[in-house]
């Protein structure tokens, strides 16, 4: 007879525990689970210690997978003795029954006494769409979880009943490599474990070793970024995940966070930042005039703040600029539809830049 596999041990452990009204002691568990029973009953002291460690690992791994095995203190011997046992409550283990308001449950028979959750059409539709969106994100770090959650909700809710917006994400080259790096990074963010990696910085063209405390991951313009406290530079930095190599989270002391995330850290504040808004320099205020109809586009996309609406003559908008170079290149990219009006030194820089670029085409007609 071959030894039960890990999967079989896990299934047995779940089957043994789920739904029991009173906690199960370690001794009862050891006797009831085939993979543990023989060596527990007849083994040496070393065997028993070894099989106990196997159980502890199984329990911890199942908890990590979301199986809510509880450790419970309870009394025996008519309340005179406190002991510890394990429990897997049906209410926690099984998905509650999901029912649309005014509809019958999709699955009419109810094998267990569980909570029933009544959902409106909107709630149910947006829950399914929300999970679809996470699963469809390129290199999504929660793709597997979003797919499995979708399957569970679809057990009671018919996805074909709900209309969702048809969304297609176009993946950039290297998306698989990014997905492979996002997995350990996502785990490190959640567990607050330090991470080491090699990073290819574009501005200096150099590859450096980094040691960081990862605070969060964000997706923008088809690209994943990590926001982290770089311990070598003692500063917050944003790293493009696609430029990382050899991502290595700290494996020591799992379950113990390596760092706290500052309470004032807001990952959302990193979204929709333009290149000229990044950096540690003091910002300067720049005014840019937009020709019509580009002025409509600037207003629609809230680029800067409107200072003067000149109707069909365009508009004047104000920007807070921390890095002049990317800002001037952005204004230049509008090919004459935008120009820097102030401050004078920035205006001069803009004219110089335009002159240098024009010189590249000096011989052209």
């Amino acid at each position: 007879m071959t030894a039960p596999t890990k999967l079989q041990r896990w299934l047995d452990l779940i089957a043994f525990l789920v739904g029991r009204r009173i906690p199960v002691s370690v001794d009862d568990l050891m006797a009831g689970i085939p993979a543990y029973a023989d060596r527990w009953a007849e083994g040496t002291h070393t065997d028993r210690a070894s099989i106990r460690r196997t159980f502890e690992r199984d329990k911890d791994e199942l908890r990590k997978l979301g199986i809510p095995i509880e450790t419970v203190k309870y009394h025996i011997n008519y309340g005179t003795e406190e002991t510890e046992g394990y429990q897997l409550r049906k209410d926690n283990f099984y998905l509650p029954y999901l029912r649309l308001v005014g509809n019958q449950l999709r699955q009419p028979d109810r094998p267990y006494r569980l909570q029933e959750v009544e959902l409106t059409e909107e709630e149910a539709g947006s829950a399914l769409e929300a999970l679809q969106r996470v699963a469809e994100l390129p290199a999504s770090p929660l793709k597997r979880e979003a797919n499995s959650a979708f399957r569970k909700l679809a057990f009671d809710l018919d996805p074909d009943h709900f209309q969702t917006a048809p969304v297609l994400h176009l993946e950039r080259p290297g998306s698989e490599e990014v997905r492979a790096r996002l997995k350990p990074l996502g785990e490190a963010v959640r567990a607050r474990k330090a991470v080491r990696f090699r990073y290819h910085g574009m501005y200096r063209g150099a590859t450096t070793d980094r040691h960081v405390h990862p605070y969060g991951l964000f997706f923008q313009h088809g690209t994943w970024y990590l926001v982290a406290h770089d311990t070598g530079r003692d500063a917050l930095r944003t790293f493009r995940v696609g430029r990382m190599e050899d991502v290595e989270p700290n494996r020591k002391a799992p379950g113990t966070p390596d760092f706290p995330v500052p309470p004032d850290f807001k990952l959302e504040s990193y979204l929709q930042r333009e290149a000229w808004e990044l950096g540690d320099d003091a910002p300067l205020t720049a005014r840019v005039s937009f020709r019509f109809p580009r002025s409509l586009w600037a207003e629609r996309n809230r680029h800067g703040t409107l200072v003067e609406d000149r109707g069909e003559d365009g508009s004047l908008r104000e920007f807070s600029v921390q890095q002049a170079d990317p800002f001037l290149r952005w204004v230049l990219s509008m090919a004459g539809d935008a120009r820097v009006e102030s401050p004078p030194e920035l205006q001069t820089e803009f004219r110089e830049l335009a002159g240098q670029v024009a010189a590249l085409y000096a011989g052209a007609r």
Partner: protein
Amino acid sequence: MVAAAPRTTASEQLERLLYILPRAARDGGVRLEELAEALGTTAEQIVHDLEEVTTRAYYHPAGSAEDLQILIEGDRATIFSPGKFRRPVALSPLESAALALGFRILAAEGDPTIRADLLARAARLEARVADTPTEDLARGVAVDAGDRGDGDIAARVREAARTHRRCSIRYLKLGAEAPEERNVDTYALVNAAAGWYMLGHCHMREAMRAFRLDRVLDATIREESYEVPADFDPSAWTTPDGRLFWADREAEVVVRYSPKVADWLRERGPVEEQKDGSVLVRHQVGDVRWVVEHVLGYGVDAEVVGPGELLGKMTRYLAA
């Protein structure tokens, strides 16, 4: 010869089985192919997973799971289980985090007037279907809505696409003298590195067109509805390097990028290396104006090399 077991981990198998068992225990069973599709795996893997459970019969089974009977007949799996595993398991903390993140994506992309309502609804739902607080887990991941506007235009475009209703848009084409009205049946909303696009049938051109969402200045949902053609395949309009393309309107523009920015281009796609460390990229573009703006955005670090007629245009744009 016995086929080798597909490579998988115990946690992946457990996740699949906790779905397979309840799914095959209802409605008189389920087709293996249907299970495989739902789980993103193969029918062979499903059979292998179930065999792991049935082999338990060869040793003393635990608890009341001995009542579990598994029948694989033809292309169908049926489970008889009067006891355990007849419901999917509750959402795990990470599944709940995925749900929370998804709601935040929808809220960020949605109509700003109902954003708070959607988030409140999400919090209520998460509290009811998941036992674990998800806020900490979900807080570590954020997704940009990909639209700098207030969100109301994008929300109307999405709603029109979701309900298959024609959408009137006020569209500002790149380089146009004024915005123009278009009526569009949106077949897909496409997210590329440059942002969101409406991909669908343009009634003015009577042809497929893509409209960049950041250039949609206004949108109105019309009464007319439409069906997405059965043969519509979005992949016919996309390239492997993640952009939209128009085979009948594409022109090649060659751009040289300086060594200073060459790495940025190398990570985006194929380049032609030059001896001085610069790179050449052959852009296939549907709108030459796009490449003009793209090149100017690199300042002196990018230069159009060809076609020749575009070089003169660059000079005129810079003079403006």
